[in-house]
């Protein structure tokens, strides 16, 4: 386990090799091989490390490796006036939570790498290596993110994955929309990072350390800020702002749908399975802090549920296959935050894991579809693909059922756990979440229907036999056929279908690690993860509130003993087994209803969709325009910033500079104000002084008339002035 730092480093090396050498020298085969080998090695190491972790006793499953001092200690005062030392090590920590995450990242990552070798084969040689370099780099940063033992190392990964996301979204950089989307992703993430980083400063100021474990241990004995809005609440709120950016929650979710401009494997890996869950992971990582700040928890839950619902509604009306999935991702991330917000950290992490499998699967399937359709992403031009793409269809169906929460697929267990915990916490949240689950099932099956069922609506392929210029430049789908003409929808190569099948297996089986007690399972994953969510220091006796709260948040079994003192909530956290089963049934029902409705509308009677869209045209328009949020942001935040920028620039050129140039000053006073604002005002305050001096110079020169008697006059005036001053002043 001392070698865990190698897990991120291997893909890092892969990225280095491919980035420095590969883009110039490697053939596609070599480049793909390097990247895949790096990922495979990382996967192997991760499996080994995880196995070692499991072999430890449950309360000792934590291992920290520190490579070096990143920032050596520098004295700094803390919030309480004491002087501490600000220092950050390059430290990595393996514990159950990070163990789970590295497994997900390396496993899903590896599969997507494999998939990409097939999907990206149409790229030119350099671009191919570049893609894999980025992908490896992403894996590197993602692993740093999850393995980091302190806030700053996590932040390294945090920003790093943002960068890779930027690079990969903008992979087709010649496409304006792609580079726009990349930029948007990065900047919106940066807005979130603002909160994260300020939160980090507060963490240091409060605890004097940035180490997760030390922070958690220090926060453990602190009181829960149930009554007011204390330091921990502010910290957690700031951290959560960071999470909303990375995990695409309201109000910072807008970048994720646009991020679908990237190649589909990227969408699968980054924007579905791993990176976007970083926010969830971060909240889970700081579970102790969050659980001490109930007000933040409320915010988290509300934001989560609102995002889940809103994204699901938008998903109903999208036509782009990837966009549907993107909104679905946003929605599912909302679910995870609901879990976090209601204190079900383990459930959230569980859903994170299952989601990684089925959403990656769904994305890769959509990639397969797009591949088959030569880059077409609009579902209105698909349909009836089932016979052409049997494997894709089957695996995608598995994914759809999983996300819809149909037992015994993985999505069922994790989603159900969240719904259950939400029900315990707040009925309204639960209600909305169930509605969302229904919609999820609906729009996912709508996607299935539009893609695989019905009549084929796409272009005729025989007529396009000679079409050579399709491919990424035209469609953005990132797919090319090595120069050959498109010969109609067809199943993808093995390098793509095998990962699909493996992921489908995962999507089916991943849920079984968390079979709830109500179904006779042991909820193994929750027990496994739980040490990551608690402070090691025991709560001081009498501090009932935190204990109670943790009990609520962390599962009753673990803290049953501690929650003895706590009454009310502690007991309310239990439902009878039958009630639990009833809830379970309800959620399954929601899934089935959704699927059935979608089947009815889109497969059986497609005209209903038209009718509905016409009848609810207003709502439909709002939904298909994504609630106009992008437009709103464009009109307010972006326009405001750019307006300020332009205004300040004008200010800079005219006033600040102008006081010292003068030409600006003169121009302002002239009638040409409108034109001048743009052009001359800029050269305006600095130059004013210059102009004044120059004007002064001319005045002084005019006095020099060349007439001797005037000179004598000036001299006499000097005498006169001095004498007068003497006479009248002194």
């Amino acid at each position: 386990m001392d070698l865990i730092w190698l897990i991120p480093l291997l893909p890092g090396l892969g990225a280095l090799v491919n980035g420095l050498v590969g883009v110039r020298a490697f053939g596609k085969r070599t480049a793909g091989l390097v990247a895949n080998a790096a990922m495979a090695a990382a996967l192997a190491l991760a499996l080994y490390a995880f196995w070692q972790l499991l072999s430890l006793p449950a309360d000792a499953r934590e291992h920290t490796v520190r490579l070096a001092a990143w920032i050596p200690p520098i004295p700094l005062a803390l919030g309480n006036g004491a002087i501490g030392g600000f220092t950050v090590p390059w430290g990595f920590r393996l514990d159950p939570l990070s163990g789970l995450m590295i497994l997900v990242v390396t496993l899903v990552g590896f599969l997507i790498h494999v998939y990409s070798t097939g999907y990206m084969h149409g790229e030119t040689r350099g671009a191919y290596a570049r893609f894999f370099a980025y992908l490896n780099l992403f894996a590197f940063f993602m692993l740093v993110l999850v393995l980091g033992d302190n806030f700053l190392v996590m932040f390294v990964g945090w920003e790093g994955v943002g960068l890779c996301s930027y690079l990969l979204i903008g992979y087709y950089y010649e496409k304006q929309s792609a580079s726009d989307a990349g930029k948007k992703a990065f900047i919106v993430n940066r807005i979130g990072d603002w909160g994260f980083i300020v939160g980090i400063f507060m963490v240091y100021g409060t605890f004097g350390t940035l180490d997760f474990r030390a922070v958690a241990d220090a926060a453990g004995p602190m009181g829960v800020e149930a009554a007011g809005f204390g330091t921990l609440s502010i910290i957690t709120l700031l951290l959560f702002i960071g999470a909303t950016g990375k995990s695409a929650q309201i109000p910072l979710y807008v970048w994720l749908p646009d991020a679908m401009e990237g190649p589909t494997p990227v969408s699968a890996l980054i924007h579905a399975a791993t990176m976007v869950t970083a926010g969830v992971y971060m909240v889970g990582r700081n579970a102790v802090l969050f659980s001490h700040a109930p007000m933040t928890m409320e915010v988290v839950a509300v934001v989560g549920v609102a995002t889940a619902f809103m994204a699901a509604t938008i998903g109903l009306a999208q036509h782009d296959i990837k966009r549907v999935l993107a909104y679905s991702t946003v929605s599912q991330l909302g679910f995870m935050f609901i879990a976090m917000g209601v204190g079900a950290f383990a459930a959230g992490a569980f859903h994170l894991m299952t989601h990684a499998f089925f959403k990656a699967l769904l994305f890769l399937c959509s990639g397969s579809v797009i591949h088959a359709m030569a880059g077409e992403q609009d579902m209105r031009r698909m349909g009836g693909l089932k016979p052409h793409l049997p494997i894709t269809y089957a695996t995608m169906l598995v994914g759809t059922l999983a996300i819809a929460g149909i037992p015994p697929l993985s999505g069922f267990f994790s989603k159900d756990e969240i719904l259950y915990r939400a029900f315990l916490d707040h009925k309204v949240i639960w209600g909305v979440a169930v509605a969302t689950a229904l919609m999820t099932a609906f729009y996912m099956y709508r996607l299935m229907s539009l893609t695989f069922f019905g009549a084929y609506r796409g272009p005729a392929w025989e007529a396009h036999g000679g079409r050579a210029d399709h491919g990424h430049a035209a469609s953005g789908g990132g797919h090319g056929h090595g120069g050959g003409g498109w010969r109609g929808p067809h199943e993808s190569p093995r390098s793509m279908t095998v990962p699909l099948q493996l992921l489908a297996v995962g999507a089916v089986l991943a849920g079984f690690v968390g079979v709830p007690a109500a179904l006779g399972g042991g909820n193994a994953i929750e027990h496994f993860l739980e040490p990551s969510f608690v402070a090691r220091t025991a709560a001081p006796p009498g501090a009932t509130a935190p204990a109670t709260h943790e009990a609520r948040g962390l599962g009753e079994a673990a803290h049953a003993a501690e929650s003895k003192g706590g009454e009310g909530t502690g007991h309310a956290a239990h439902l009878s087994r039958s009630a639990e089963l009833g809830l379970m049934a309800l959620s399954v029902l929601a899934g089935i209803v959704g699927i059935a409705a979608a089947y009815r509308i889109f497969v059986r009677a497609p005209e209903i969709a038209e009718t509905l869209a016409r009848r609810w045209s207003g709502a439909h328009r709002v939904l298909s325009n994504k609630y106009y949020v992008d437009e709103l942001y464009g009109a307010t935040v972006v326009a405001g910033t750019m307006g300020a920028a332009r205004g300040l620039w004008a200010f800079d050129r005219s006033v600040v500079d102008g006081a010292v140039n003068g030409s600006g000053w003169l121009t302002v006073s002239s009638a040409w104000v409108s034109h001048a604002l743009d052009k001359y005002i800029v050269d305006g305050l600095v130059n004013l002084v210059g102009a004044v001096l120059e004007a002064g110079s001319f005045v002084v020169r005019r006095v020099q008339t060349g007439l001797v008697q005037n000179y004598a006059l000036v001299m006499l005036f000097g005498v006169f002035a001095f004498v007068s001053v003497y006479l009248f002043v002194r």
Partner: protein
Amino acid sequence: MAEAAAFYILAALILGFGVLVVTAKSAVHSVLFLVADFLCVAALYVTLQAEFLAVIQVMVYAGGIVVLYLFVVMLVNLKRPPDAQRDPRRLGRLGAVLAVAVMVELAAILAVGWSRPEGEAGALGPSNVAQVGRALYTDYLIPFELASILLLVAMIGAILLARREM
């Protein structure tokens, strides 16, 4: 009383001729009034028991300098009247006003009164030519000699400037 009468008469003459010098239309007239003025000043010196200076005044000023002026005036006045052109930017009138203002100020300050510096009650006889001579040749020998060089410079300079060739 006689002293006072002499002073007032001479003062009136000096100032009167001074006004004429400054206001005379013709430069020749100016020069002539200047001679008269200088002679009056010389007379004033006599009343102040500065006979030597009075003589010098008559000899150098009235005899030398004024002749020079007259000569130059004659030389340059032949062609056209000098006051023909007038530059509007010249502030002559303001100059006169300012000069009067300065005069008033000076007079105001000087009229406040003057007192003899202490411990300097020297003895200057009624005929002090010898004393002046001694002062010039002992105390002020160095400036006296320097003045000779100055006069040499002036002489050579005047020649340099006045002759036609370079």
